[in-house]
Structure formats: C-alpha cells, structure tokens
C-alpha cells in the first residue's frame, strides 16, 4: 500500500496545494461571502460550494490563493516556511547574497527552491527582511516566459505596500531580480567533507519531502480545532525582533483590534466561530468574560459577520497594551462607552 502511495505521489506532481476545508470561512459560516481565493485565481480553478475544491488540471499552482486566504485554508504541500527562512539565514554565512527561487525550471540559479513564489505574502516578505541580516535576492528571471509571470507584479505591489505602511527597509533587503545580469548568484564552495555532508542532507531532505507528501489527501481537521495561520505566526515571531518604531508601525498596519458595543449579551458564539483562536472565554471574578488576543487574529472578520447582535467591530490597527496577551474586551478595547 505504501509503495503504491509513493508511486502515486511521485507521478502526481500537480497536487501541490493542501486544502483544509475546516478553515474556509464559507464552510464555517454559510452566510459568509468571502471570495478572496476565487477573486485572485486567474484560471478560475477554485470552486466553493459543498466543499472547497481546486481543479487540478486547470490550476497553474501560482500559490496566490495560499497567500490571500485570511484563515489559512490552503497550504503549499511539502514546504515549510519556517525551515525555508532558517535555511536562508544559515546560507548567509557561506554566500554573500542568498538567492531564493522557484522550482519551475532547472536552469534557474537559486540556493533555495520552493513552489511558485506567489505564496510570499506581505507577512513572509517582512519576516524574510527581518530574519536575514543581509540582503536576499529573489530570482524571477524565469518568470517572463512562465504562465505564472503575473506574480512578479503581485510581489512588487506587496513590497510597495509594506514600504508604504511601515518604514521597514524591504527594498534594500530584498531584491526582486528579473534581469539575469543583476543576479549575484554564487555557488556554495564546499570542501570534500562539506560536499558529502551536502549530499547526505539532500537525500534526507528528499526522503522527508516524499514522506510528507504521503500524508492523507483529506487535510480537513476538526472544525473546532483552532490554529493561527502560518502568515500570522511568522509575523508574530518577526514582531518580537523589531525595534520600537517599526513595532508600532507593524502593529498599526497588520494587526487587528476587536471591539464590542452594548449589544453584546455574552453569548460567546463568536468564540466557536473564530477559526484561529483569537477569542477566548476567561473566567473572571464577575463571571465568564470575552477576551481577545490580537496575535491570534488574522482579521478574517468572521465573528463580525456572524454576531447575531451586530455587536462586533474588527478594525485594522492594534490599540491595546500587549498583542500577545488575551486582554479583556470590556476594559481595554471597548467602543461606545
């Protein structure tokens, strides 16, 4: 059985996006009108009705859906953003400028190969620019004649948006390289020991990727299992490293504030609706109380749409003390009183 699965996995390379239906806002709440992924999909490959489905024969795997879904319904299979950043960080010791690129073509020179770079959200780009001390080049030289070439504009827009909202030096840290001449790719020089070590690592990596791919096709978790999105988690980790002025800028631009008005009757239905676990009931002396953690909120607004009393308002820009803490909504973030 395992053998069959391995063969299936190797032959079926088109299956690059994992879907967790339980995260989809429209699966969680039938009145939700979220259509971010459908709007961004150039090939109309995504269907949402009785379930979330990507038509694999149409999908170009540009990974834009992965980067735009507010609740992390999609994920790039066999790729881990955390270890990708860690490997790039380690690379900066051995080469002057690490190069990140996609695995669409073999002749694209990169140190780290990933799926199509459309998955790089603003949060990813901020994380890359902060975690890597030096410069990073993103190799887009092959994009001109790729059907996913439109992601170059998307990445540029995302970089501009970051520069607009914050004073982070993303353009200095990260170069989008479209011209081969600008590329500063340098092979990693290896001694004999290093060479064999690299081969060993490569084999392990391939094996790991292979086995990661064998995980069951149905990625749907329990609807009540809360999990913060990878993007939000990356930004949370980045946030702690930022100097004070950037910290407030990022909090203003990327984090959310949760407010309720007098209409709230403490029914706590929003707690169950939230896909990421940003809302929690905390036992206080005066009884149970709604608390909010901004670092666990991806701003999908599902609670806002779901609240039967229309008492919830989600707004951009965190206003509390500590975004990593569950704060009482009544005391710190309440509006209209």
């Amino acid at each position, binding site marked *: 059985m395992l053998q069959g699965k391995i063969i299936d996995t190797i032959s079926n390379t088109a299956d690059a996006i994992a879907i967790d239906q*339980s995260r989809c806002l*429209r*699966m*969680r*709440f*039938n*009145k939700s009108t979220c259509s971010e992924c459908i709007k961004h999909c150039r090939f109309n490959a995504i269907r949402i009705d*009785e*379930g979330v489905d990507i038509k694999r024969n149409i999908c170009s795997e540009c990974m834009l859906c992965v980067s735009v879904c507010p609740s992390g319904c999609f994920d790039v299979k066999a790729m881990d953003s955390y270890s990708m950043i860690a490997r790039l960080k380690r690379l900066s010791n051995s080469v002057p400028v690490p190069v990140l690129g996609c695995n669409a073509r073999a002749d694209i020179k990169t140190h780290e190969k990933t799926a199509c770079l459309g998955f790089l959200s603003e949060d990813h780009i901020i994380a890359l620019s902060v975690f890597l001390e030096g410069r990073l080049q993103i190799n887009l030289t092959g994009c001109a004649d790729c059907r996913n070439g439109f992601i170059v504009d998307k990445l540029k827009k995302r970089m501009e948006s970051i520069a607009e909202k914050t004073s982070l030096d993303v353009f200095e840290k990260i170069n989008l390289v479209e011209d081969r001449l600008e590329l500063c790719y340098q092979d990693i020089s290896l001694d004999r020991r290093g060479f064999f070590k690299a081969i060993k690592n490569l084999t392990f990596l391939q094996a790991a990727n292979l086995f990661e791919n064998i995980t069951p096709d149905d990625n749907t978790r*329990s*609807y*009540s299992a809360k999990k913060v999105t990878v993007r939000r988690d990356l930004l949370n980790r980045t946030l702690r490293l930022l100097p004070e002025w950037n910290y407030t800028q990022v909090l203003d631009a990327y984090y959310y504030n949760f407010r309720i008005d007098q209409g709230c009757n403490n*029914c*706590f*239905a929003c*707690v*169950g*609706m939230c896909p990421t676990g940003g809302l*929690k*009931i905390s*036992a206080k002396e005066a009884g*149970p109380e709604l608390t909010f953690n901004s670092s666990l909120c991806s701003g999908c607004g599902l609670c806002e749409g*779901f609240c039967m009393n229309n008492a919830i308002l989600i707004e951009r820009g965190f206003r509390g003390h500590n975004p990593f803490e569950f704060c009482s909504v009544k005391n710190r973030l309440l509006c209209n009183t």
Partner: protein
Amino acid sequence: MPKYGMVIDLQKCVGCGACALACKTENNTQDRAKGQTFNWADFIYKAEGKFPNMKFTAMPVLCNHCSDAACVKACPVTPKAMHKHENGMTIHNMERCIGCRQCQRACPYSSEDVDKSKAAYSVISFNDFSDEVHPFYKDKTEVVAGCTASGAEISHKAGDIPPHRTMYKHSDYASVREKGKVEKCMFCEHRVLNGELPYCVVSCPAKARTFGDLSDPNSEPSKLLKKHKAVQLKNNKGELLKPGEKGTRPNVYYIRSFKKA
C-alpha cells in the same frame, strides 16, 4: 429507507425515570450544570390543582428528530454538523461542530440556559469551552495523596474502561463528547445500526416507549399511531400535548394522555 420515530404511551409511563438513567449510562451524559441539562432523555413534571384535588403528570421528553428540523436549518457549517440521516434521525457530527449554539437557539424544545429561562428541560445541551467533559474518566491524580488511586488510574492499569463509562463507536459522534460542542439525543443510532433498540426503549419497565419505522405501516409504532390519536409535545402556541404542532414535524409522538386532548 426506514424513517425512525418513537411513540410514548403516557398511560403506561409512570415517570419512574429508568429511561433517563439508562440514557445517562449508555451515552455518558454529564450532570446538570451551568444552565445545561445534559439529559438526552428528560422529563417535564407538572403538578396542578390544590390538595386533595391534584393532578400530577410526568411527560418524558427527548429530541424529537423533526422532519423539518430547525436545528439543521440553523447550523452555519458546511457540510452541516447537525444533519439528517436518511433514516430520519437528526444526528450531530462532533468533528464539524464549532460550538456556536445556533441549533440550541433555533430548536423549539431547547433553551440556552434552563436556569435563567426557567425552562424545565432542553433537548440540546452545550459543553462549556472551559471545562473538560467527564474529567474523572481521565483524571489520574491520587484521591488521597500516597494512598488511593483514582478510578481512571486503576482502570488504566487494569486495561479496562473507567467506571460508569460506556464505549461505543459511531461515524459522527463519540461516546464522550468534547468541550465547546453541543450534544443531544441521537436515537442511539450506534445501537439501531446494529439491529438493537435505543437503550431507553429497552430499559423502560412499563414498555411505554415504542421505537420503529414510521414509514412501515406494519411496524409497532405505526400500529399504535393508527389505533390511538397521537399528539406531539408542543403545538403552535407552545401548549403541551395539544393538537396543532409547531411546524417542525417531530417524529416523537405521545398517545393516551390521561387528559383529553
């Protein structure tokens, strides 16, 4: 496909509570707490009049497995966590439930907080987000430090199930539910699929409960419904056991009330 339903004979029922106890044992339901009853099989007790001219009525209540279930319509999740099976049962899928309690609000036979709303019963109950369900099934701390073990620990060491726990498997629900989710009577589908009757039916010493296929004219409940005039629990005005039902088409019928309908 059968369409399961239940007929309760009110002249046979003496209100002894054996069905409720049986249900608690079979389905490991919790004790009443935090405005939730957790009684999948419950009662409405009514005392009317003044001594010595008194009337006491005990009416067993349970999920009515309505044909037009309001709880199913209200469930916001896709595919619905609260859904109808082809056999007519209203079944709750635990994996997909997010604990928003919309079903509880929509159900004419349920109440969000029985203490606050002074409701006698609620067929749908909600497990709080903060408390573990049946902690003593898992709690392995010593009861007396250095001396006595807990029931869970002894049963774990002995390779047995914890005391007062019934284990069963079903595709949609578990024998013990999770926190932050609702629960209700499932007509013991795990038993019915194996050709057994719901445990409350088996346990009734007066045989007041009859369970079976309502679409089959020769089944026990169908025969009873033909023979007696049946009413459902509530009518349009919310009155108990009067004709003119609420519009959800419940599949639990009451026959032979002592009071004339």
